[in-house]
């Protein structure tokens, strides 16, 4: 029996999550391999992990990192070009940015006064000013950004990356999303769709919960002393082994026995990651955790570092409150100021912290929203901008991208991506490339064809690579 069992169970290297014993049921092959076992990339990677700082609602590029002098000059005039065929709402004349820009660092890159702390790190940042997507509504744009598709349920980029590279820490998930929004695609923005379930993001709380209270579900059972639960699990394992002996070798049954041990380890390791009490005061200050305005996002960023340094492959941190945080159709001045204040210091803290720990060189940090905003005014108050997927800015740091570098432009007013355009598909292709994967080779057979994160599109933006 031992021998045939070995043949039967060959390749059952069980890791965290182990296990996607797709139990002979998938349309593809039935080889039961741990989908999260560490895998070699297609070619040497520039970064091993990703921290995605997602600014939900669509931060305005003209007011943050993409200064437009002509917009200031032509304030109040009509936009001289053609407006897009489909728009989310009607907008009026050009609206200048209420914030001043200043040059920073060796690179002399201009940043608005909304981000004084991030501006200090500008020599580490690689801006893509010519981003563009397709969907001008939050839901579609979030799905497009996270999954590459705004029409169908598809695996999220974090799931693709987990699937492609596996995880290096068998006690933690490969993909963690801290306080994600449940609106506008919700779970689909971190779900694995048809990829193995172990590749899905594990949510810690959601956008309506302060991060301090955010927990992975079922991580604790207050009703039972820890030692006793261990004995419960010992009994369970014994009973499960008896059952297995009666049934005969079975990957799924055996995987389940292991899964309880993994869960028990996870139950211990996750609270340890979430417990920031051992961080120094200096670190906490750096992230702004000691100030009420920045405390929540600061904790999120610190958690991101703690997960990243323990080998989690993809950590997403979402900046969203109980409203669509960055969505200033009106109240641009007040809203963007509040939002920027909440994230500016924590983000700068994260960048500095990663750098000083030597983590920035193989961690790719990404900052961005689902779209940008229009250079024209929305509403009567001269204080609002509409959604704009036609041109916007994201930035990256670390992970082998050119530091202190700007790539691509929008037009003179910031409506359309103009030169060196980077579509969201190109962004995904580049992201995978930085992690050592060829976006055309990272495929999964489902419902009769091979699927990719980039569908049938996507070009790697090689010019931003250091």
């Amino acid at each position, binding site marked *: 029996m031992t021998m*045939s069992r070995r043949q*039967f169970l060959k390749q059952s290297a069980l890791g*965290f999550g*182990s*296990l*996607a014993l*797709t139990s002979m*049921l*998938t349309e593809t092959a039935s080889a039961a391999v741990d989908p999260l076992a560490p895998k070699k990339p297609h070619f040497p990677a520039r970064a091993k992990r990703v921290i995605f700082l997602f600014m939900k609602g669509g931060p305005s590029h003209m007011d943050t990192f993409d200064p437009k002098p002509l917009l200031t000059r032509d304030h109040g005039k009509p936009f001289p070009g053609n407006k897009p065929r*489909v*728009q989310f709402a009607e907008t009026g004349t050009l609206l200048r940015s209420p914030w001043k820009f200043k040059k920073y660092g060796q690179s002399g890159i201009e940043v608005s006064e909304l981000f004084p702390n991030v501006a200090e790190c500008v020599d580490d940042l690689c801006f893509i000013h010519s981003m563009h997507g397709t*969907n001008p*509504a*939050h*839901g*579609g744009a*979030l799905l497009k950004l996270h999954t590459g598709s*705004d029409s169908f*349920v598809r695996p999220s980029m974090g799931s693709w990356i987990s699937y492609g590279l596996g995880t290096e820490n068998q006690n933690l*998930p490969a993909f963690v999303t801290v306080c994600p929004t*449940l*609106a*506008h695609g*919700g*779970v*689909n923005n971190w779900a694995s769709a048809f990829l*193995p*379930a*172990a590749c899905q993001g594990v949510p810690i709380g959601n*956008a309506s919960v302060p991060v301090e209270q955010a927990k*992975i579900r*079922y*991580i*604790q*059972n207050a009703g039972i*002393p820890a030692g*006793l*639960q261990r*004995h*419960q699990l010992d*009994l369970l394992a*014994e*009973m*499960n082994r*008896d*059952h297995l002996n009666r*049934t*005969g*070798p079975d990957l*799924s*049954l055996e995987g389940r026995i292991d*899964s*309880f041990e*993994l*869960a028990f380890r996870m*139950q211990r390791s996750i609270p340890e990651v979430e417990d920031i009490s051992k961080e120094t005061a200096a670190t906490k200050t750096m992230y702004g955790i000691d100030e009420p305005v920045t405390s929540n996002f600061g904790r999120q960023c610190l958690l991101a570092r703690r997960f990243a340094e323990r080998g989690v492959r993809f950590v997403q941190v979402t900046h969203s409150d*109980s*409203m669509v945080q960055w969505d200033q159709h009106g109240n641009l001045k007040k809203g963007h100021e509040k939002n920027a204040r909440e994230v500016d210091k924590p983000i700068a803290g994260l960048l500095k912290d990663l750098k000083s720990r030597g983590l920035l060189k193989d961690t790719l940090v990404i900052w961005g929203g689902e779209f940008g905003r229009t250079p024209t005014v929305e509403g009567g108050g001269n204080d609002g901008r509409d959604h704009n997927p036609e041109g916007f800015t994201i930035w990256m740091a670390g992970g082998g991208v050119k530091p202190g570098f700007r790539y691509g432009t929008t037009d003179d007013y910031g409506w359309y991506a103009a030169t060196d355009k980077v579509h969201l598909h190109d962004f995904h292709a580049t992201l995978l490339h930085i992690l050592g994967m060829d976006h055309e080779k990272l495929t999964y057979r489902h419902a*009769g*064809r091979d699927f990719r994160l980039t569908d049938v599109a996507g070009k790697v933006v090689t010019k931003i690579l250091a």
Partner: protein
Amino acid sequence: MKRYATLILICGIIPSGFAGEPPLKPEDVRFFETRIRPLLADNCFSCHGPEKQKSDLRLDSAEAFRRGGSSGEMLINSAKAEQSLLLQLVQHADADKRMPPKKKLTEKQIADLLLWAKMGAPFPPKTTATPGEKHWAFQPMVNPVPPATKDNAWAKSPLDSFILAKLEAKNLRPAPPTDRRTLIRRATLDLTGIPPTPEDVESFLKESADNPQTAYENLVNRLLASPAYGERWGRHWLDVARYADSNGLDENIAFGNAWRYRDYVVAAFNKDKPFDQFLTEQLAGDLLPTPDTATRHERLIATGFLALGAKVLAEVDAKKMEMDIVDEQVDTVGRAFLGLTLGCARCHNHKFDPVTIDDYYGLAGIFQSTKTMEHFKKVARWYENPLATPEEIAKKAEHDEKIASLKEAIKAIKEAVELKKRKDELAELEKVSAELPTALGVTEGSVANTKVLLRGDHLTPGKLVPRQFPVVLAGAKQSPLADKESGRLELAKWLTKKDHPLTARVMVNRVWRWHFGQGLVRSTDNFGLIGEKPSHPELLDWLALRFVEGGWSIKALHRQIMLSATYQMGSTFDANSAEADPDNRLHWRANVRRLEAEAIRDSLLAVSGNLDKSMGGPSLQNIKNRDYLFDHTSKDKTTYDTRRRSIYLPVIRNNIYDVFQLFDGTDATVINGDRATTTVATQALFMMNGPLMVESATKLTSRLLEDKTLDDAGKVRQLYLTTYGRPPTDREEERAKKAIAGFEKELNADEPDAVKRRAKAWAFFGHVLLAANEFIYVN
């Protein structure tokens, strides 16, 4: 012509070149294919073929041949073959009209052409079908004779002969029959989704002692008659129907009336509605003539199937939204009933299956002519069918009238006491004033054919295609659909034709999958070229044909399957068989299967005595139809705090109940006829720490502790009977008692109260029983 060829091929007869003429003689076909077609292809087609048509002449089909070129003269006149234009040309008789112009044919070739002309120029369609056209699933079903087997004692039905023959061919033996306790547990969970009670098991054992066969038949019949059957198998169908109580995608708005469709499905399974009727009602229930209001409403509700898709309701581009919704319908219908991924042909001809972009837009036209939406302005609003009876409408009108006149009256009242009284009266009236009932569903829209959209993009429309069915299945010569109807009813009629090669096969295979854990075709939703081939093609056809002939009865199909020896096999492992067939494709034993998410929850509730068996009704509490489930706040307003069966829990897209998410429930957005079974650590966390586990364990054991007639050994025995349907072994009993005592001792410090301590210790033990593999797996 090529399409015509395809149609003919599917029909399996060799036709003549011209419609309406008698079939060609095989020897004529052979002559043409060996002597004439190669000649034409080598010498003529480059100028008169698919690429070029000089002088408006094509020579690559019978029809084209007959039509001739721009001169209008017939190419061949078989009565005067020598004088035929074609022969004149190839003989270079006229210096100005020589064909081929540069190189004269050989004498032999000219003689062949002459002979052919005399034969009447038979021109059979091209017979080399593409691999797609030859694909097994597109061929007619055959009625196979059950194969002979060496062992003629094992089979209980012809079904078993098909299974046994394949096993014998590999020198394998089926596992011995399972024991009676396992059998009743398997059958009960399979048909009802909840385990048998100790009493059920006891009476089955007793009955079996007299006559095992009758006892088992009675059991299957009793289970099929139980309302829980419809809840279990209705849930399976809801996986196919991508059922949900909310829209999901971008604007997650409540489908407040979707539950009516869910209840329709449960009832359909319970009353064994013939599957052809079930299908027809879901695609075209609104178009069926109906004898009475109740039936009419039932059929309107059934069309919810088409309307349940997830829609991008804030899509700014209205035309794109419309085509996306149509696409979702084409794709769902294709995969649900045909097992074909028709959605692939939205942008281009299907890469693998013989489905063209024209086929896609032929179907798309049917759904574009169907009204699913009230409007496409953001946020778009879906259509619902009115369900009110005339009495309800009259009553509502009367009620509204009362409110209106009271409001009018109040305006005139000055006196405070009187005013208050009347206002209270109004409030009371308004409280009972409810919306008239409606159901998510479709109706006829403005009927029109649609244009092919190149690359699937509505900004690049191509040619107009008629509304019709895929040519590879229905042929090129389809009678056009009526101008005044979308064609949904015709579509349903076509799908439920007795000789349709896919509909019955696909459904029979689904039922097989839900019984055994894997289909005869494992890719249940894909019967195309990329899908898997059937492990037992003859058995699939045998079952499908009987399904159709037996009036599409699903319950009869269950009996067919469950009364077989194959179904009643044990799950005994065998190293030899495992090596020869590791995936158990040949059914050498019963698969050990994990329960689905819903069955896990229902079983927990059932064994702990917590299950509320009330059936049907709305899923959503505190949320009205078309309300947002999630606005920008990410606050979850949905409650899962009910003891009812899982099928009645709200299915909220983008945020499926987490316990169901954990255990591979569907995402409720795309059809899923073959749920995965994954094992991940987060499931174990739920099993260890989930409140449902803790509550169920507590309830399970506290009931037992109250029973004074049982000693501890008796209690342990009762726990095993309740959870696993079997008594514990002596060793298990000892181990249980020891474990409980150990827990009690460990609790000493935390729980000073001895009674509570004992209760907790038992609950901890019960918890282990419920978390164990034996509880959530079926052998």
